[in-house]
């Protein structure tokens, strides 16, 4: 193993430079702190590495982790041996999931922060309130919308809670299939609106959003349309002169000192050299699966079960959402094409089915939105004939005559659904991989059924002449959304992190991704995560590193 000179200690080391690591890097370096960011993947450049190549981006996983190098395993019960399965393989590179994402960024609702207060004990679920409320997050939601770049129409979503500012950019015009969605919803009395989108259509902050290719979800964007931390917050952090980015740096341990505080991290660089980076504060932002894995791998005499894990809850209560949907086909001989493959993935959506209505047979609810059916190789078409004349005929007939309405399933937390270290399977470095144990809750299945059936109704109102509803069978991790593996709370026996996403056990360790979410919410989580990462980074800069403390009162 090569030995290299130990780098100078810094104020903050951030592990994982995706949506949340990028946010923390910007906020902390702009506050004047010396920050090093370590990213295990490469630093791809949008104008150099990205184009509309379906085979490369969707099938051969150019941007995604290679599941031979860094596998994950999944099992559905305690007694099974987990099998390798590419579960929630969020891209690991500078910018993380903001490279490939569709970019739905709806705001969470007030109810999302208080599910336990609203519903009490639910059989088999481990509901918990968040240690803060929507009003604590609102200023930060607005900061992210304006600094990162979000398009939308303020006031168009009648169920949205208070917002202090409108959006910095107008949305894209509706697609043809989006227009079908709006028209059907208006006939049914449903409030449809443009789902807030992490992209701009104007020159906000000097961006050039020229990409009109429809190569969007799962593709990198060569233009300045998509909001990606690799092209926004991270360059802004570098411009302060306070932030140093090291890509291809795989952190394998958070080191604990004699005083029980973290001293820094050990990483392996591109040449295989092991390097220790010391810092006053360690921030983990690897996503709820890999952050939990790193904590569990960071064993010491003080923390034999993994760092910050005196509660035994690291990895538990994992929630992943699931993308469910229904497809509608139109008649090529009669109906105009809707071009289901065109657009920046989403068009109109609704939040009308989000709040609990117990007559539906479940609690909670989900965001619903019309979205692309994608490109020719990977057209979203369950039941597409595998081969023969039927394949050719159905592709020719439906490629431009299909649309989709999907939802993000608000799954309930269960303590047994968890991430831990696989006892058998190792990654290319010989380190144990993350093992997912997951079984859907009855509430998840019931919610998926009702909401998918509602999507079918909307498709039929839109004039679809055939529908394919896709119901929940088991979680596949198809959203890349990850939460709950180090839940926040006030009680150190029942939570891993406090209200600032600061470890109860290790005061200078913060986990600023979705790991802290006590419940999953029914919206795409990235806006909520980034706003929370900003809020907690503010606390680190303004309080913790100034030797001060502030605690929130448990909300009533």
């Amino acid at each position: 193993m090569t030995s290299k000179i130990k780098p100078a200690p810094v104020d903050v080391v951030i592990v994982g430079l995706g949506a949340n690591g990028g946010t923390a890097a910007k906020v902390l370096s702009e506050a004047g702190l010396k920050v090093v960011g370590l990213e295990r993947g490469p630093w791809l450049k949008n104008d150099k590495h990205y184009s509309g190549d379906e085979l490369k981006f969707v099938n051969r996983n150019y941007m995604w982790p290679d599941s031979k190098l860094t596998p994950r395993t999944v099992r559905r019960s305690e007694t099974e041996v987990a099998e390798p399965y590419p579960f929630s393989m969020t891209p690991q590179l500078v910018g993380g999931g903001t490279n490939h994402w569709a970019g739905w960024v709806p705001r969470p609702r007030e109810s999302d922060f208080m599910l336990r207060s609203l519903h009490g004990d639910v059989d088999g679920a481990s509901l918990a309130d968040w240690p803060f409320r929507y009003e604590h997050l609102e200023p930060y939601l607005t900061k992210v919308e304006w600094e990162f770049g979000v398009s939308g129409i303020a006031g168009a979503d009648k169920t949205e809670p208070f917002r202090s500012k409108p959006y910095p950019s107008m949305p894209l015009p509706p697609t043809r299939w989006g227009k079908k969605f709006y028209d059907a919803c208006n006939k049914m009395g449903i409030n449809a609106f443009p789902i807030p989108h992490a992209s701009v259509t104007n020159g906000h902050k000097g961006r050039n959003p020229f990409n009109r290719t429809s190569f969007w979800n799962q593709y990198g964007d060569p233009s300045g349309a998509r909001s990606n931390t690799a092209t926004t917050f991270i360059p802004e952090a570098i411009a302060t002169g306070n932030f140093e980015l090291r890509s291809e740096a795989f952190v394998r341990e958070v080191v604990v000192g004699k005083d029980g505080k973290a001293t820094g991290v050990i990483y392996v660089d591109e040449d295989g050299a092991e390097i220790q980076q010391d810092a006053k504060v360690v921030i983990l932002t690897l996503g709820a699966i890999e952050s939990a894995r790193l904590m569990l791998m960071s064993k010491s005499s003080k923390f034999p079960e993994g760092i910050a894990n005196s509660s035994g809850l690291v990895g538990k209560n994992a929630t992943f959402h699931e993308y469910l949907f229904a497809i509608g086909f139109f008649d090529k001989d009669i109906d105009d094409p809707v071009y289901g493959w065109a657009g920046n993935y989403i068009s109109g959506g609704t939040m009308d089915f989000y709040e609990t209505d117990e007559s539906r047979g479940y609690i909670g609810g989900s965001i619903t939105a019309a979205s692309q059916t994608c490109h020719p190789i990977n057209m979203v078409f369950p039941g597409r004939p595998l081969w023969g004349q039927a394949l050719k005929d159905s592709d020719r007939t439906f490629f431009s005559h299909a649309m989709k309405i999907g939802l993000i399933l608000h799954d309930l937390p269960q303590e047994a659904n968890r991430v831990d270290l696989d006892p058998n399977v190792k990654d290319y470095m010989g380190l144990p991989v993350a093992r997912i144990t997951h079984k859907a809750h009855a509430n998840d299945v019931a919610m998926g059924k009702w909401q998918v059936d509602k999507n079918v109704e909307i498709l039929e109102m839109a004039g679809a002449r055939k529908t394919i509803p896709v119901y929940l069978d088991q979680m596949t991790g198809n959203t890349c959304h990850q939460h709950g593996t180090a839940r926040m709370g006030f009680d150190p026996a029942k939570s891993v992190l406090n209200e600032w996403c600061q470890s109860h056990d290790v005061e200078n360790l913060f986990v600023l991704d979705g790991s802290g979410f006590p419940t999953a919410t029914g919206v795409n989580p990235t806006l909520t995560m980034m706003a929370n990462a900003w809020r907690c980074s503010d606390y680190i800069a303004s309080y913790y590193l100034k030797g001060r403390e502030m605690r929130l009162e448990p909300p009533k």
Partner: protein
Amino acid sequence: MSSKADWKTILEPVNPDSNEPLFFTKHEWDTVEAIAARIIPTDYDPGAKDAKVVVFIDRYISGISYIFASADGSGFLEIDGKHAHSWRARISDLQKVYREGLQVVDQVSASNYSKQFVALDSESQDEVLVKVSGQPKPGAVNLGTTEPATTFFQFVSDDGLPFWPAICLHVKQGFYADPVYGGNKNHMGWKVIGFDGPESLKDTMDGTYTTADKFTGDYNWGELIPVLANQSDFPVPVKSEGLYN
């Protein structure tokens, strides 16, 4: 070892008219071409044989030189380091899957018709493929029905696929992928289904290729979203300004 960010561009786009296999034997090449012609047959529109899908598959499984086109489609990326190791293993598995699978196709042909697959008429070829796949021949997709499905997996790769699903996936890929990879000759596959794709990958990097005409031009936000009439906190737009108008 170099980062994925620094992989060099090598080679040139694959020539779809090449008849020289890099991996297959001549007989394997002919058999793959014949199978591809049954997976996406030629009718009043071109099929997989016309689009040179066999060239696409041969290049893909010949090694690790034709895995990722460069962003602009001028050539291919030279995969390096741990990724090269992983892709070599993946391709080596696929070579074995193809070699063995093609033998099975000929064995089933021989035991049922006493001929090699390539010598059969298309009806008999389909019978052989039904036996190889272990499933009935897929039927037409009809309107006027609702057909439920369960859990859809977004992550699409060919890792671990047996021969039949692998070749079906690869034929679809070769028919519809960007022509830099050797198939979809002259955008033939795209034309069959009416996909107005880009002339080149480069055209998707600089704003040359646009699908703006596939959006709705004739709309008014106030009509699409009636609740906007009830709110007064923020200005109510009529249309989105910008590049899509």
